[in-house]
């Protein structure tokens, strides 16, 4: 995007980078905040229906869809209480740590092919690492609240989340191993085609791993039946017992943010990411492009004066963007299904006890994940045939996808190289001149982009 602003809109490079970063930030914060808004509403509706009641029905007209917003306004208006015994600074800091971690992890989460705030070739690692930071939030909150119940909640959280990171990491490694990359965009693209290409159906082991991953993910985001840190029947409200108002709601934004994050990660790693079960996105996009084309042309005409060479965008690019949009919806749907399953589980099962949670992790999840890992490893090493090798009547299989990805990556690298060192021939009119990308990067790194 920075390249676009720089080369097409002729903004100075630092400004282009800054603008691109701001756009990504704003978009992601909306995904997290609006996502939490929707998921809290969804949770209330789902739990209501499970429990034979209606859930919210009033606010915002039909289905009470603005209920969360009303709650949010209420929470903002509430008194912000810091208990007398609390360590005020840590107490106030804790909710933001959790929210910031949950929010940061979205930076590396692609929503569709290439629709990611920051392309990272270590995206999986980044997300796991940043999610790991989230555990500090309940620990800090519990420690600084000056309440014994909060302290219990914090200790449980520490014990539980740290243990579950181990099997979670083992599960995540398997798709990375099969695809040979930590780049989530690549992993997603390699599952293009029909659902037989999804990694969960690659071999029996990956399917087991997908199930273990979901269990561990539920535990690592503190959802029932692993919600020990906030077990209301034991610890009143656990680590957030003493919180009120907006700070309290930040914990929930973080919780719902990470819920979608781990579900989205599951979708990308195991369930095809933005690819639907049947590859129909591109034909549909082809049809849609006929409708959208005239609009795009009008847009081109209108935008012509600021973006002179936007006209170079080929018709194929429009179709690709429409397909990407559909992929994004696909991905959001998959993530939402994951979140809904978590809700379903929450409102059905009793809570486990702390020792049983640890037993589940150390005696079941870790060995099963290890077994699945080794199994998937041998499956790869001995090149046992997978569903992926079936001749696909429609779409493509993984090896083809992989090749096309390599080609695509080479092409992108070329474009990138061109973008940062534009030749005067490509840019008629005033030229920003040439500069080397290393200088720009170092400028951005030092925060001296302004």
């Amino acid at each position: 995007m920075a390249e676009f602003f720089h080369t097409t809109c002729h903004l100075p490079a630092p400004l282009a980078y800054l603008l691109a970063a701001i756009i990504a930030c704003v978009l992601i914060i909306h995904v997290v905040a609006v996502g939490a808004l929707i998921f809290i509403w969804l949770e209330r509706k789902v739990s209501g229906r499970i429990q034979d009641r209606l859930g919210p029905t009033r606010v915002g007209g039909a289905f009470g869809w603005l209920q969360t917003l009303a709650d949010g306004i209420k929470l903002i208006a509430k008194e912000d209480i810091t208990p007398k015994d609390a360590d005020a600074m840590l107490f106030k800091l804790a909710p933001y740590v959790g929210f910031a971690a949950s929010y940061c992890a979205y930076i590396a989460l692609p929503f569709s092919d290439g629709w990611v705030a920051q392309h990272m070739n270590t995206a999986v690692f980044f997300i796991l690492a940043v999610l790991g930071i989230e555990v500090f939030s309940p620990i800090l909150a519990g420690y600084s609240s000056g309440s014994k119940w909060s302290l219990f909640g914090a200790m449980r959280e520490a014990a539980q989340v740290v243990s579950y990171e181990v099997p979670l990491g083992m599960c995540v490694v398997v798709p990375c191993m099969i695809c040979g990359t930590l780049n989530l965009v690549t992993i997603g693209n390699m599952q293009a085609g029909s659902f037989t290409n999804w990694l969960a159906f690659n071999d029996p082991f990956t399917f087991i791993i997908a199930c273990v991953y979901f269990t561990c993910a539920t535990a690592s985001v503190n959802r029932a039946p692993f919600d020990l840190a906030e077990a209301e029947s034991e610890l009143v409200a656990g680590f957030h017992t003493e919180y009120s108002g907006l700070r309290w709601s930040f914990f929930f934004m973080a919780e719902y943010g990470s819920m979608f994050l781990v579900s989205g990660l599951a979708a990308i790693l195991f369930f095809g990411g933005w690819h639907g079960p049947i590859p129909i996105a591109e034909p549909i996009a082809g049809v849609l492009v006929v409708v959208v084309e005239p609009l795009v042309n009008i847009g081109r005409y209108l935008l012509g004066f600021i973006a002179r060479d936007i006209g170079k965008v080929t018709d194929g690019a429009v179709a690709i963007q429409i397909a990407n949009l559909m992929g994004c919806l696909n991905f959001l749907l998959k993530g939402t299904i994951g979140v809904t399953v978590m809700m379903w589980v929450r409102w059905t099962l009793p809570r486990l006890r702390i020792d049983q949670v640890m037993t589940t992790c150390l005696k079941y999840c870790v060995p099963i994940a290890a077994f699945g890992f080794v199994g998937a490893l041998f499956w790869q090493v001995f090149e046992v045939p997978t569903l992926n090798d079936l001749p696909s009547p429609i779409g493509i299989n993984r090896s083809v996808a992989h090749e096309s990805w390599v080609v695509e990556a080479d092409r992108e690298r070329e474009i990138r190289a061109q973008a940062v060192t534009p030749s005067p021939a490509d840019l008629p009119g005033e030229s920003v001149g040439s500069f080397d990308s290393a200088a720009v990067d170092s400028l951005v790194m030092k925060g001296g982009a302004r």
Partner: protein
Amino acid sequence: MATQVDDARIIEFDVRTDEMLVNMGPQHPSTHGVLRLVLRTDGEIVSEVEPHIGYLHRCAEKIGENLTPRQWIPYTDRMDYLAGMNMNLGWSLCVEKLIEHELPEKAKHLRVIIAEMGRLASHLVGMGAYGLDLGTFSPFLYAFRERERILDLFEEACGARLTYSYLTPGGATADLPNGWLQKCEAFLDQFEPVIQEYHALLTTNAIFIKRTANIGVMSGEMAVDYGCTGPVLRGSGVDYDLRRDGEDRYTELYDGYAFEVIVQRDGHYPKDHDYPAVPKETVLGDCWHRFYVRMLEVVQAIDLVRQAIDRYSTASGDWGVPIKLTHKLPKGEVYLETEAPRGQMGFYLVSDGSSIPWRVRARSSCFCNLSVTSELCRGCLIADVPAIVGSLDIVMGEIDR
């Protein structure tokens, strides 16, 4: 410690974590009202639990010494407020014993219907709230959905949904309204198959079994020693139910009814219905068994109500006209215990010959049931404390009175 300083290893391994004294309650989500438990914990392990009561004390007994027996009926409602009908029944029978009042046939069957429906309503809360204690929310609402229908029936009979004051010395305040029995039967027909769902959600749920099996194990001897009664006693395998073993004045209500006391005999519960099998992990007297006895009593109560409805519709006499408000009580003292949902509810009455009792005393089942908490919770985990206290199914209104 100072003497051991020479040996560095001893110091190294003499690290102890601090014990923490935690107040669970009186404002705590899972202490069923205003029970206060003081926990001495070492990390997650609870080394000592001490229940403190008295937060709901309303001097009910003293008030009873200033009112006539019929006037005191509303105060009995507020003892075990989840089973007000059964409290009414206990007091009514006690007063009737003193004044030697004989009930008409129909009134007896009416009382069985009402008392067993009360037991149903009470056990439903017990079941739902136990789910809450273990962290599952939905069964609570399912239980309340059914309970609401029982309350609707009660409301039709007496006008109140929680504090009924329906059964009074002499009989009941009014007969059942027309069509009540059909509605009641319709409810039972709807409710009976649904119990399987509760078994699926709770009784046979793997996590539920994990949380309750072998937790808070109380031997039959210990239960008897502490004076536990009701499902808590029967959950420990003691075959004792006042509906069968109680005083004549009480058991005659159940004369001719076919029912078997719900208790495990030779490793089996009475096989009247299709119950889920007892899981292997459980031990007689643990939380699971206490819960299970309650679930089976729900089925039994349905059966008893059905029988009572049949008898009621063919019985002779009226519903039992209440005694006068200022009925002169004969001089003397009586004590009578009934099998309330939570155990044996006893009322003690001393009269000096006026219409107002000289002394009124209530024997609470929950008080005795609660007294085992300290012993059951010793050495358990924090999460087990709500599981154990919940399995005792206490109501603070009855304990504090």
